[in-house]
């Protein structure tokens, strides 16, 4: 693991960037603070987790969704996937993300369209992710 990335400031910046990329909106401060603690508690001493050059991803504001998807298929136990999963858990415990995780009305058509769109989108992200990993040497 790259220990230098665990400074509070770096982790907060990382959380903000990842959150914007995944949820498309500014991150509440509580999630940022919890993200820093969770990273320190869970990832700092984790073994068997492949490192990823987070500083490079942040510096170049790379497409995290694409890189993560491609990485997950090549190296399932990688730190970027873990970090995004942590962020999702933190978001899920707050009520302002309720609608992101839970469907409250019967919407079969919307669901069908959203899932179809996301299937094609995921394929595109997968290809893009493989290209980015090859071009920038993120692992």
């Amino acid at each position: 693991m790259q220990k230098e990335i665990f400074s509070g400031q770096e982790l907060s910046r990382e959380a903000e960037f990842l959150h914007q990329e995944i949820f498309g909106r500014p991150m509440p401060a509580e999630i940022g603070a919890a993200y820093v603690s969770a990273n320190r508690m869970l990832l700092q001493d984790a073994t068997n987790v492949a490192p990823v050059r987070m500083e490079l991803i942040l510096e170049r504001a790379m497409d995290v969704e694409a890189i993560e998807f491609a990485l997950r298929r090549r190296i399932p136990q990688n730190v970027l996937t873990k970090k995004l999963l942590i962020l999702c858990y933190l978001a899920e415990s707050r009520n302002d993300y309720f609608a992101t995780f839970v469907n409250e009305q019967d919407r079969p058509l919307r669901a069908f369209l959203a899932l179809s769109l996301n299937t094609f989108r995921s394929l595109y992200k997968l290809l893009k992710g493989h290209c980015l990993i090859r071009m920038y040497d993120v692992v």
Partner: protein
Amino acid sequence: MSFEVIIVGSGPAGVSAALELRDRNLLILDVGFRAPALPHELKQNLYDLKKSTEDLSTVLLGENFESLNNVVSTFLTPKLKGPLLRFVTRDWRQLSSIDSSEFEGLLSFAAGGLSNAWGSGVYRFSDRELKNFPIKAFDLDPFYDRLTSEIGISGCDDDLTPFFGSTQGLLPQIELDRLSSEVLKRYSKRKRLISQEGIYIGKPRVALLTKALGERQAYDYHGLEFFKPNIPAVYNASYTLRELEKQSNITYRSGFLVQRYEETSEGVRVLARNINTNITEEFFARKLVLAAGTISTSKIVLSSYDDNSTRLPLLDNAISFVPFIAPRFIGSSQERRFFAGVQLNVVYDKDEIDAPIQGSFYGPTGILRSDLLLDLPLSIKGNLTAVKYVTPALGILQLFYPDAPNANNYLKLNSHGALEIRYQKKAFGRIEKHFISTFRKLALFSLSSLCKYPAPGNSYHYAGTLPMKTQPQNRYETSVNGLLFGLKHVFVVDAANFPFLPSKNHTFTIMANSMRIAHQLKRELGS
């Protein structure tokens, strides 16, 4: 201070023995970790709570991010990783570590043991399942009946009655969720076709109150089983313990880890380490009842003989998970009122198999959506959309396989006095494929590549180390009455004495058998 009987452990086996011996001078020795206080009242259903509470992280994730256990550590079932349920497995590695590369089991030192986080399925063993036992179903029936009225079991008479036995004393069945109701409806219409494949489906028997029983209220369908400990309607052994503790003739001492015993002509001396002071204390009784759970009980017995060479046979229900999707429920709204545990039971039984294979069918709506994120095939944003719309259409079939003694699967003490377990992983897939093809008739779809086969030990159903025999041959076998061969005062009442492990959840039978043995012991003690 001397007692008539010392019972080690307060899980289902321990409290059932204590229940039968409740008029005796009893000491229950236990480590006895308890559930923490609730940080919120948790009086709404899971989804209303999530919607109305700004920050539910202490309940859902934990102050130390306990719910995120599976992000980096060895897999823990959602129920055991819930922050308020972590007491169930608290400190087990420090108290009794297991050296094994292939066995992923765990132990509980909580008051009530693993029943604090069980699936609450309660099933009677049939004579077919008891064929390797020195007892018959009718030996257990009176105790099954008593326990049914004592703990409260809901269920009904349906296609699974031939497998699950008497419906006497059952409370009304649980309300099913939308998906399971639909599956059952389709099954009723295609019953002949499905049963030709050896598959039978019905409502579960669960230790869950659909009507109030004593001070325990009926279940509220809040779906909080993965996050809230001690839901009164869902039975666990600590409720019985709490009742027993009220009696003046019963002493409950927590904070003690029993290490060994020594038999004397008058009874048994028990040595237990006080985990707070680290001082070993002595207790004495006429009889000792070991109910610490299969693995811990075995450790106590092996330690008492200072034996680090004997390999005791270990049984474990191998498990598999088969996810199914019901396309017609994709995009359905999230139900608010539901039970997060088993919705349907499934039995596979054909002439060519020795014992039936049982499964539990449930939806994943009671767990965190983030638990499912990496199980879906899209990018992370795609998966966020998928968990939102697909979760109400998902069902998981968890299959349990029976187990019989095998020389490759054993438990022993190593030279440092720690447990060592070896267990060969079994080959699976055939039955899962059969379910996948048959369930298409119920409009449930899956792929065999999506099935998961956890490592041995993940069922948390262990047994068989000190088997009951009609004529025990060595000191690690027990008599029909649970007495360890060669001893006069030491009885085994937990699943360590099962010579075979059927696919059914064995807790109810552990309880009934423990009561049966305690009943004999009571007679032996006299008035």
